[in-house]
């Protein structure tokens, strides 16, 4: 064993990635990154979670993962506080937990990997000003209750209020990631605000409906959104959507795996601190930013998820 | 000798929108009497009873019980006042056992926290034993309509009441059950309970009741001691004219034909009947008699493929039929009038007109399949007139009609298709004397015009009065046949109930 790298799994050492709404395409490239890192290190992976938007079910699936005693779990906790006890129990029983894209800060999870929603919002705000000037009307869609989406929206509004006070927020509608709802909401917004210049949408599903509404109304509105789907990608190529900001999902998964592996192998480090007496995990990374990509007409071809997944195993 | 008055109603009125169901009705009920209420369909009898039971609130008038004026706002209050009610329309909970149905009212007012099922079943069985053969644990859903009627009666008998209302309780019963019921009623009356008895069967009224009150068009007409009046007088008071002939003339000898319309042979069904064979001749009206549950309805439904897996042959006008479904039977010209008009005869929430056309909507439609509303309305009006249907407008819902008028709608539906053979299962259930005579006349006309008519009736006088020949069914088999002067109640009852199946000596 001495010849082998210590960054290797033992026979059967398994890592789980647990998410909610598990069929959502967002997880697909994340899990690819997770798997790529795992394969490089000879580890087994499992994709788990619940297909539903239901915290009870996610906790049940998380607890069922633990029964199989995996080395670690990379977890996207649907809500922060409900996961405190389950995460702490997991760690007490020898399964380490790292969170990604959503956190449970009061739990003992070892690390948290995410993209910086504030940075995304700031970038989007600057880009909007660059395109439509600093005294235009803009509107947002949102999904109340989903923290990362909330953050992307509120941060942008706050940023404008502080730095570009002449930017005027004229519409704020909930679309709940539903293309039809977004379509209806934007259609009405456009009627009420003929001078609307820009639209910021915190995810891609709503953007699909929004762009259809803008085209149907033959309006000239700058659309920016976060995340990416094949449909919005094509709208970017066609110039109907100006730009999308997509978290580096691959890095999120890759980094997530590495952080989980490290957290499961704290013996690999002997740092200069009090971990031995205080008992915390010396491999902890309080916060790691996986960065985001800016998708425009020019680079759109590299963001086709269907093309990317050709020949890859989704599970 | 007159007993004290227990209930006195004066000048009572009640309207349903434009329909004035009761207009100034008076009624006086004495302790221990059996008081009949007579009146045509839609005269307001059931409405009056519903007012007494607190189901409907009157628009005006006074109700006095034991000398004290009262307002009865709900069935619960009626119960508290000692009023029990056997409804014309069977109202039972199908998903609940017979025993629980019987004691529903008792359970409702009971102070006990827990149900005592064993006790309920025991007490229910005791009551049911008087009435007939019904399992107290069975779900009501599994009972036949006549059994359900008995459960309704049993239900009223459990109440500790001083006034007991029977709204056409015998409409779904055979003579035998009716006789048992009357024994019970007399017993109750002798204990001082006042009984209100509604029926369209004059014989019952005159055999059992003490007084009779007649209503017509929501108005009070008269009250008589039974001893001082005759059925003819009562009927005349009801309809405002004299009905001379209750039954139409029977088939004359010269009308007899050997032409067979319907030939049924060796019809069998797994559990309900076997070896049923008979012929229906042109021009005759054939009756099927028997006790409750004998299987008459089943046989007839089997013939036109409404229920069950039947074997055997059915030939219409000499041509054997191969029917897969009741729809085929209708197409072939055989139609069945159900004994359960509410359950499987009518679409209560739909209009009278669309009920009448339901058997063959195509008849009121263009060749392209488009319904012609005018034709549908006209058809309903014509048939309604023929049957003396009393209704507001043929586009009103059937649920707004009185019981007897609903029955007329069901019959109109049968007539709408101009059938070749018509099976009438309890055709005049709940129909008033005048309309009944009218229906009998129509049936006879149908037979004369070559339509095959088979009537099932639990009312023996009707069977005898209308039919030319009666087949008696017992336990799923035809046990005998009576014609001509042999058609007596005694003979039919004998065939319907004898233990052994010796053929009757002619």
């Amino acid at each position, binding site marked *: 064993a001495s010849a082998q790298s210590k960054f290797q799994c033992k026979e059967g050492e398994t890592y789980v990635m647990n998410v909610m709404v598990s*069929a*959502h*395409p967002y997880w*697909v490239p994340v899990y690819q990154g997770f798997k790529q890192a795992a394969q490089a290190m000879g580890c087994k992976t499992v994709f788990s979670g619940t297909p539903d938007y239901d915290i009870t079910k996610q906790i049940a699936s998380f607890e069922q993962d633990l029964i199989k005693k995996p080395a670690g779990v990379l977890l996207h906790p649907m809500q922060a506080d409900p996961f405190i006890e389950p995460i702490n129990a997991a760690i007490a029983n020898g399964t380490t937990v790292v969170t990604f894209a959503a956190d449970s800060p009061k739990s003992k999870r070892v690390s948290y990997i995410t993209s910086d929603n504030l940075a995304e919002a700031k970038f989007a705000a600057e880009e909007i000003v660059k395109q439509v000037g600093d005294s235009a009307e803009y509107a947002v869609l949102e999904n109340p209750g989903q923290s990362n989406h909330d953050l992307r929206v509120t941060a942008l509004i706050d940023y404008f209020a502080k730095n570009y006070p002449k930017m005027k927020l*004229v*519409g*704020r*509608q*909930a679309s709940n990631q*539903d*293309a*039809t709802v977004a*379509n*209806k*909401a934007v*259609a*009405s*917004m456009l*009627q*009420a605000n*003929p001078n609307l210049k820009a639209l910021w949408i915190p995810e891609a599903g709503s953007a*699909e409906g929004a762009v*259809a509404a803008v085209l*149907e109304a033959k309006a000239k509105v700058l659309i920016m959104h976060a995340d990416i*789907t*094949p*449909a919005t990608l*094509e*709208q970017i190529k066609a110039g109907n959507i100006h730009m999308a900001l997509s978290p580096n999902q691959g890095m999120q998964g890759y980094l997530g795996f590495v952080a989980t592996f490290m957290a499961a192998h704290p013996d690999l480090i002997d740092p200069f601190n009090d971990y031995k007496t205080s008992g915390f995990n010396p491999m902890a990374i309080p916060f790691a930013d996986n960065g985001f990509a800016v998708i425009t007409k020019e680079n759109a071809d590299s963001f086709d998820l*269907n093309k990317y*997944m050709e020949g890859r195993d989704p599970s | 000798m007159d007993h004290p008055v227990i209930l006195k109603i004066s000048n009572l009125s009640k309207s349903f929108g434009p329909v004035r169901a009761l207009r100034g009705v008076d009624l006086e009920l004495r302790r221990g009497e059996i008081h009949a209420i007579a009146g045509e369909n839609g005269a307001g009898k059931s409405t009056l009873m519903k007012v007494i039971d607190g189901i409907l609130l009157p628009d005006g008038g006074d109700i006095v019980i034991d000398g004290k004026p009262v307002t009865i706002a709900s069935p619960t209050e009626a119960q508290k006042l000692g009023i029990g009610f056997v409804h014309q329309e069977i109202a039972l909970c199908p998903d609940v056992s017979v025993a629980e149905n019987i004691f529903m009212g008792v359970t409702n007012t009971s102070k006990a926290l827990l149900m005592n099922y064993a006790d309920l079943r025991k007490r229910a069985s005791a009551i049911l034993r008087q009435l007939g053969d019904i399992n107290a644990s069975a779900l009501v859903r599994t009972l036949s309509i006549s059994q359900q009627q008995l459960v309704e009666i049993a239900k009223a008998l459990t109440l500790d009441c001083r006034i007991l209302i029977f709204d056409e309780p015998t409409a779904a019963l055979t003579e035998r059950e009716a006789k048992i019921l009357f024994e019970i009623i007399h017993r109750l009356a002798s204990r001082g309970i006042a009984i209100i008895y509604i029926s369209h069967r004059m014989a019952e009224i005159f055999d059992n009741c003490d007084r009779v009150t007649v209503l017509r*068009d929501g108005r009070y007409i008269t009250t008589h001691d039974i001893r001082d009046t005759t059925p003819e007088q009562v009927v005349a008071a009801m309809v*405002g004219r004299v009905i001379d002939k209750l039954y139409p003339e029977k088939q004359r000898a010269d009308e007899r034909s050997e032409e067979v319309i319907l030939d049924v042979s060796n019809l069998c069904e797994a559990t309900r009947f076997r070896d049923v064979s008979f012929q229906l001749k042109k021009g005759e009206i054939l009756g099927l008699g028997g006790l409750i549950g004998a299987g008459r309805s089943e046989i007839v439904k089997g013939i036109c493929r409404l229920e069950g897996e039947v074997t055997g042959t059915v030939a219409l006008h000499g041509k054997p039929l191969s029917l897969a*479904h009741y*729809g085929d039977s209708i*197409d072939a010209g055989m139609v069945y009038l159900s004994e359960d008009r509410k359950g*499987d*005869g*009518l*679409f209560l*929430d*739909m209009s009278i007109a*669309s009920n009448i056309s*339901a*058997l063959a909507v*195509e008849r009121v*439609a263009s060749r392209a*399949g*488009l*319904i012609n509303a*005018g034709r549908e*309305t*006209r058809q309903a*009006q014509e048939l*309604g*007139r023929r049957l*003396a249907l*009393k209704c507001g*407008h*043929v586009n009103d819902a059937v649920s707004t009609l009185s019981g007897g008028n609903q029955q007329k709608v069901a019959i109109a539906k049968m007539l709408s298709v101009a059938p070749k053979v018509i099976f009438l299962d309890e055709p005049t259930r709940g129909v008033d004397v005048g309309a009944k005579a009218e229906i009998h006349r129509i049936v006879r006309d149908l037979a004369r015009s070559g339509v095959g008519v088979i009537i099932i009736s639990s009312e023996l006088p009707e069977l005898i009065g209308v039919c030319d020949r009666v087949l008696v069914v017992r336990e799923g088999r035809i046990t005998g046949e009576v014609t001509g002067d042999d058609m007596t109640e005694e003979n039919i009852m004998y065939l319907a109930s004898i233990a052994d199946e010796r053929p009757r000596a002619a």
Partner: protein
Amino acid sequence: MATTSNPVNGEAGSTGNALGRLFRMRETGLILIIAVLFIVMSFASPYFLTWDNMRAMAMAFAVEGIVVVGMTILLISGGIDLSVGSVTALAMVIAGWLFLNGLDPWTASLVAIMACTAIGAIMGFFVTKVGLHHFIVSLAVMVIARGLCLLGTGGRPLGLYTLPPEFKFIGQGSIGPIPVVIVIFVLFVVVFDFMLRRTTIFRKVFYTGSNEKAAAYSGIRTTKVIFLTTTLCAALSGVAGIIYMARFGSAQPTFGVGMELNVIAAAVIGGASLKGGSGTILGAILGTILLSVVSSSLALLDVSIYWQDIIRGSILLTAVTIDHYLNKRRG
């Protein structure tokens, strides 16, 4: 002398003039409520009564309206279908997948609609032959169809930007000033409303839903009727899916989640009974319009999203209460 009460007469109904008849119609209450809403809104927002806004509002309910047609007919026959959202999505996914794999979009759409029809037939089979309840069968199918959507796409929306313009025309084109989607919608509504009111076949749907046993005792093959209405509803969901696909230029496996409640609500507001036997297409469409106009208006007025649901629910409750009183007779 025999009877002083109204004789049987049919003339009374047809004596009234057209206006009188309108007032007796079940749908009048809803029309009034929607009219009031329109008047209020046109004072509240200068943009409300513009052609563009009307068009946008109509576009918002047109495609779902086709599903509402199918659901209303199914409800009248006594059934219900929770799977409409999933089946709509499945139609998109099947057609999209076939198109991306080289089939021409028209054939692909036809196959997709046929597949949805087959799903409806399977549901019909379980309801009529096996004897299960519509609710539970369509719930299972809702889950299965959603699973098929995920399986067919790997959970990822299919981008169908390359759909030919003739095909996109269905969802995005206009005939004169009127969007094709709305033309199709109106066509479906008019045809089915007429058929439901006038044809013998659809009359049997009412009989079956009103009293299944009595319908059987009238020689109607009720199981066949229910089988057909179940199938029709799924087929119309399929049609809606194809139109959505043409409109959005993509196939979304998660499309239409929760659509069933909206669609059923529209039909019920419009007078359809969950017990079967009553309902009209016109009423159901008015229900759809009511729900949609309320949502659009809240968005147009930019009401805070935290208040929108509260206001929307309250208006819904108020509207059905008022409508109920206007139709008091039908208790």
